[in-house]
Each structure stands twice: as C-alpha cells, then as structure tokens.
C-alpha cells in the first residue's frame, strides 16, 4: 500500500522534481544560468521546436503520427523566402501563403490516412520526402537570400519585409529592455490554445476517445475521419508557423536549417508523456518536455560541454522519460485518466 503510494507520487511528480533539480544544479554550478536573459534564451531556443511538438501531440492524441512536420516547417521557410524575395509579395500574403500550405499538407496527409488507408507513419514519411524534394525545385537547390542571382541571370529584387522580420526578431520589454522575443510569445499562445483545445473542449475529448478506442468512438456517432484529418491539419499549420518563425529569425531561406526539427519536436512530445504521470500525449507535458530539453542543453553549454554531446543528452532524456511512462505506469493499476 505504502509502496504503491510512493510509486504513484514518483510517476506523477518525478519528472517535475527532476526538472527542478536540474535547474537548481545549473544555477549553482554555472554562473549566469539563473538570470532572466538565460531563461529567455532557453525559451527562445525551444520556441520553434515546441510549436512543432504541439502539432505532433495533436496527431498522437488520435493515435496517429506526423513525420512530415520537419519538412513542412522547412518548406514553409523556403516558401516565405521565395514569396518575398522572388515573388515580392507582402509579409501578410507570405504568412497566409505559408499557413495555407501547412493546412493543405495536413489535409493531404489526413486524406491519405483516412481515405486511402495508408498507415500514418508511411503516409507522412512519403510526404516528408516529397516536401524535402519539392522545396528545392523552384530554386534549383539553392538557398534564397536578398539580392541573390536568379537562374536566368537577373538579380532578385525583393527583400524580406520589415514586418515579417519583426515576427522573428522583435523583443518586448519586460523587466529588462528588449527581453521577451516574439517567437516565445507565439509559442506560449499556441501552447495555451492547444492545451485548452485538447483538454477542455468536446472536440479534444473526442479526439482522445478516438486515440483510445477508435471503433467505440465511431459507434457513439463520432465522425472519426473528420477528427483525424483535423489533427493532421493542426499539425501542418503549426509546423508552417514554426517555419515562418525560423525564416523571420534567419532572414533568409536557408535550405540547410531545420534539420533537427523533426527529431527534437517528436522527442519533446514523447517526453511530455511522462509529465504529471499522464502516460499519454498532452499539450502541457509537451511544452514542459520541450523546456526540459532546452534547459538541459543551455546548462550543459554554459558549463562548456561540447556541442556534439547534445544529441546524446537528448536521447538519454528521451529514453528515461519513456521508461517513466511505460514501465512505471504499467506497474500502476490502470486508473481512468480523464
């Protein structure tokens, strides 16, 4: 009995305690870690990954998976650069274009899975390859930058609009001047929105029901196909938001950036399973999961750990979180979570 209570407490709060412990350790060990600037730096480093991870979370909720988010984000990055530098569209049109692209990719993913009955991993894997190729075709494999030379010999005349760059680079004043960057604001807004949607609306509840027993959800009159497509569209749109933020921060359409986005965001979503012993995808956990990785990397960097240890650390955290989720939870008697 007593053992069981300890186990339950460990499952519920273990990961948060671990997070607090890490923060304390770095605060003592690394000078300057416990400062507003450092905290904001962590947030900024996880903002884009976090937004993508929230998208993956919505597909995980319906027992799906979206492997195409990384390539949707980089496509959105290239598309925004192409739209402004070469097509000379305004910032607003560019943003709308990217969001539409994300929604469309999500729609196609969803339809492939729901109508064509392609397994989710395969459908989104195919989409990933397709997009990685597609985003390079218009520029013949080159990055897009202001004033670049076009294939026909002319010089591109468009520039990144100031409003567009504002999305990625603006910093709000908070305690200290120019502290809080715009991408972090977007991340927090998206996190709250996804958290509310999945946790507190009937649509979210039905999506969890689909993820837990699709047949049963269908037999109570849920439109399973529509919710699944919706999940992939949310994922696509959020990935394109991530791409927009990345483009606005970089100020160029760099084909090499965004390589790590897929793995990092999937890791964050899976680490999120362990937070508060949820043992299932959830927005709050995903956001904490993203933060966890960010804090760990920031701390290690400030303690001069070499950059190439980063992936190893992320992997170790992920494995630990998965053990938390699956091994410990299976030992607990199965209780309702909603």
């Amino acid at each position: 009995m007593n053992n069981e209570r300890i186990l339950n407490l460990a499952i519920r709060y273990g990961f948060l305690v671990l997070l607090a412990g890490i923060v304390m350790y770095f605060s003592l060990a690394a000078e300057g870690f416990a400062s507003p600037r450092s905290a904001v730096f962590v947030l900024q480093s996880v903002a884009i990954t976090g937004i993508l991870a929230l998208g993956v979370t919505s597909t995980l909720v319906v027992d799906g998976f979206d492997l195409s988010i990384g390539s949707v984000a980089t496509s959105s990055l290239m598309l925004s650069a192409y739209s402004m530098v070469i097509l000379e569209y305004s910032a607003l049109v560019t943003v709308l274009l990217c969001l539409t692209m994300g929604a469309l990719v999500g729609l196609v993913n969803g339809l492939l899975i729901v109508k064509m009955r392609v397994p989710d991993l395969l459908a989104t894997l195919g989409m990933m390859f397709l997009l990685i190729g597609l985003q390079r075709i218009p520029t013949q494999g080159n990055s897009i930058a202001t004033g670049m030379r076009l294939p026909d010999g002319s010089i591109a005349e468009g520039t990144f609009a100031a409003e567009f760059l504002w999305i990625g680079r603006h910093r709000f004043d908070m305690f200290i001047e120019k502290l809080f960057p715009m991408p972090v604001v977007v991340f927090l807004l998206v996190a709250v929105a996804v958290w509310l949607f999945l946790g507190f609306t009937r649509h979210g509840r039905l999506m969890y029901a689909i993820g837990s027993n699709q047949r049963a959800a269908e037999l109570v009159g849920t439109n399973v196909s529509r919710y699944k497509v919706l999940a992939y569209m949310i994922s696509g749109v959020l990935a394109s938001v991530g791409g927009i933020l990345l483009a606005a921060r970089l100020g160029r359409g760099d084909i090499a950036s965004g390589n790590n986005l897929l793995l990092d965001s999937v890791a964050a979503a899976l680490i999120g399973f362990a937070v508060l012993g949820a043992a299932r995808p959830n927005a709050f956990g995903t956001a904490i999961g993203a933060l966890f990785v960010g804090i760990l990397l920031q701390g290690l960097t400030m303690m001069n750990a070499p950059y190439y240890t980063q992936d190893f650390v992320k992997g170790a955290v992920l494995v630990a979180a998965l053990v938390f989720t699956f091994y410990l939870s299976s030992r607990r008697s199965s209780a309702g979570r909603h």
Partner: protein
Amino acid sequence: MSQTICEVRGVEKSFGSNRVLRGIDLAMRAGEVTVLMGANGAGKSTLVKVLCGVHSADKGELALAGNPYTPVDAADAISQGVVTVHQSIDDGVIPDLDVATNLMLDKLTAPGAGLFVNDRKLRAEARKVAEAMGLTMNVRQLVSELDVADRQMIAIARALARSPKLLILDEPTSSLSATEAERLFALIDRLRSAGVAILYISHRMSDIRRIADRIVSMRDGSISGLFDTQPLDYEGAVTSMLGHAMTDVDITPATNSAPILCLKAIKLREDSPPIDLVANDGEVIAVTGLLGSGKSQLAEVIFGLSRPIAGKMELDGGSYQPANAKSAVSAGVFMSPKDRASNAVIPDFDIANNMTLPFLGSFSRYYKLSDQKQRRASEEMIGSIGIVCQSNRDGIGTLSGGNQQKVMIARWLLKPGRVLLLDEPFQGVDIGARRDIGRHIRATAKGRATIVFVAEIDEALEIADRIIVLNEAAIAGEHINQNIDLAKLVAEVSGPSRSPALAG
C-alpha cells in the same frame, strides 16, 4: 461398440476467478462424429484448447487410445495424433506461400529437417497428399490466389497428412458455401469410415443434421446434454445448450401503442426472405436466434452500419435511412454494441467520461466542456442503474464486466432517444448485473422502442414484451411474452430441416 480413442475425465479449468470448465466428462470413439454445441462462453473453445495442448487442465485427466495424454503444447498434441483445424482459416494457412509449402509445413518444422529445402521433392510429396484428399489445384499456386473453401481444404489436408487419431474441426463451415460444405462433409464421411474420431464444433443445424452421429451440448462450462440414440433429438440438444429454466422475472407485456420504428421488407441477404417488423412505443422486443441467424446484421442495418439488400425503414412515420452511426444517433436511434471491450469501452477514460461520450455537446458551454455537468449527470445514472464503484472518477478498467456494461448502457439513457438497440447486452455480465440492467431497461422503456438482440432464450424471456425468432436471416416466429410455448420457440430457433444453407 467401437473403440474409444480419446477420453476426457473431470476436466476443470479456470481463468482467474472465472470457472470456464466445471468438470467435463466426454469420450470420443473411432469412426464417429461427435458434434459439440454451446452458446458463446459455454466453454467450447476452452475445451478444444485443452485438447489441442494450448491450455493445460487444472484438474481431471485426458487419455488417448488408453494411455494418459498430457500435451505440453500444440506441437506435442499434433505429434501424439490430436489435430485441430481452427475456425479462422487464416490461422491454418500462410497466404504468401504456395500450396505445396503449405501442405508440407510440418515437414519443414519437424526436428531433423534439413537446412535446404528440396523444392522438387517437396512438391512431389505435396501432390501425393493433395491427391489423397481429392484436391485438384496446382501445388505451385499461391494460397492467396485460392478461394476460401480451397484454403480450408488445404488446412484440413495438412491436418490429415499427419494421420490423426482425433480430428477437431472448429466451425469449419462458417465461411463455406453449400457446395463447398458438401465437399467437406464427403471428406468427413471418408474419414469416419477410415476410423478417425472426429469432434465437430458447430452451431449450424443443417451441418449437424448432415453429419452428427451424436451430439453433446455444453452450457456454463459443463456438459448439459448428450444425445446418441437415433434418430437424434436435435431440439433437445438446442434446448439443453440454451437452457430455459423459467426465470423469476414477472412480465406483463405492454399493450399496443404507437409504432415508432417500422422495417418494411428488409432483406439481409441475397437469398433470404424479407423481414417486416414494427417496434412500438414503450415496448421491449427481444430478437433471438443462433449465431449467424442474422441478429447482429439486423442491428447493424437499423443503426446505419450496413445497408440492407432491399427494403426500407420508417421512423415516426418518416423515411429513415441512416448513412452511418452518426446519422442514426442524431435521428435518435442509439445502439449499445456487442463485444463491449472492442466496440464500446474507452479504456483511457473514467466512468463519467465513458458515460457522457455520445452527448459531450450537451455538457459543454460554448466550447468548454463542463466537467461538473458531466460528473453530476453520471452520478445520477450511477445511482439509478446501480453501478458499484467508488466514484465517477474510477477508471473504467477497474470495474467488473457487469458494471462496465451498465456504464455502456447508461451512456444511451442519458438523453431521450426514439429507438434503443442493445446487441448482446448480457455478454460477460453476471446474473445480478443482468437483472439490474433488465429492470432498468424495462422501467425506462416508455417513450421509446427498445430492441434487444440476444442468443440466450433465458435472457429474452427475462426482458422482452415480445420475442422474435430469427433463423437464416428470416423471421421464424413471433411470441408475446406470456405463457410462451417454449417447445415451439426452441423449435423455431433450431430451424426447420433443410439442405445445407448458404454461408453467412
């Protein structure tokens, strides 16, 4: 009297607290087809699994040809001469391999089999086996290209290549057409005369009439009837399988009231006669029949999960053609499906969320779900239908089968509907919960039509105002639930004697 091949003495088997076999005594003799009948959950499959080495008995003993028989696993059972052809054909064959390999699979797994496969030799041997069975197909053909009957034949041919002493056939005709089934029966006739003991599990009266030498009925884990005097008493066998000890529930059938749901000339199968049925306000109808009689099919048609071959439905006088579950629910037609674990329970959710799932919209304000409303509504249902739990926050998995089923049914009582369909609502439900559910269904019956689909006659008698018997997708009889002529009812369930029916 021919020689006894296999003998089962006092076999018991429990899974947890669930006593599935409660002391089975059975002897199977050479050259005799023993038909084993039993409703779902009677323990047939468990008995078969004990015989073919998948489970070991907790108590009792098995003997084969006079020697003690204790198979350690399925392979051991086969090597000792007890061969089983399972109901699901795909367990018996490997579709991506050719016929020859399928027929010779055992040679490949036998101890001492060589590392390399000699295809030519393999095919030659396979041809011999196929010929002995009267199979004419090319042994190089892939099994996936064959039709169901041929696949079944291959599974059986492989079983016979091992020259079994006891052959167990588990519902072998469930996916065969009449002519295909006749091929199987001819084969069984040959095996019988060759002195093989055969245990044949089936619900189909037409099959049973064709091949049975004796019938054994099972019910609730024990043998409830043994029939071996010619002519066989088929109705007696069905009665002892379904059982209908009079129940202590007192029902005064509802008198005529306004019709709610009308089925007009609904045809469930190409070759079946049309079904007409009117369900009235406040009435509880039980549709009963054996497995494969079309009960579940009828439920699916009414709930919009499948379309009838012909005919139409009317709800409150208007046309009713549900395209799917969603449109059925929005028309006020609710269904609690059979097999709650796979069709109804959301294992991740607690009681309140499982219960309120169909009507989440009415527990929301604007876009936000009201946790409080959900909990209040489910608390009320927990009280009125009598769910035993600590609170509505308990995980659904912590409840017993009966209480889970109460939650699944309570789901559809939260909002007034026009038609309530309950498909096998008493599956895996203990007697106490069964009474609770029945009482509650009857108490709330006013204002809707209720149709309950049950295989057990007992359950029908307990809950219904009117009982409709289905046989081979046709209405075989209709009874007002008062002073019912049980013999007639049972006769209708087991159906008239007729030639092998088409596969269903």
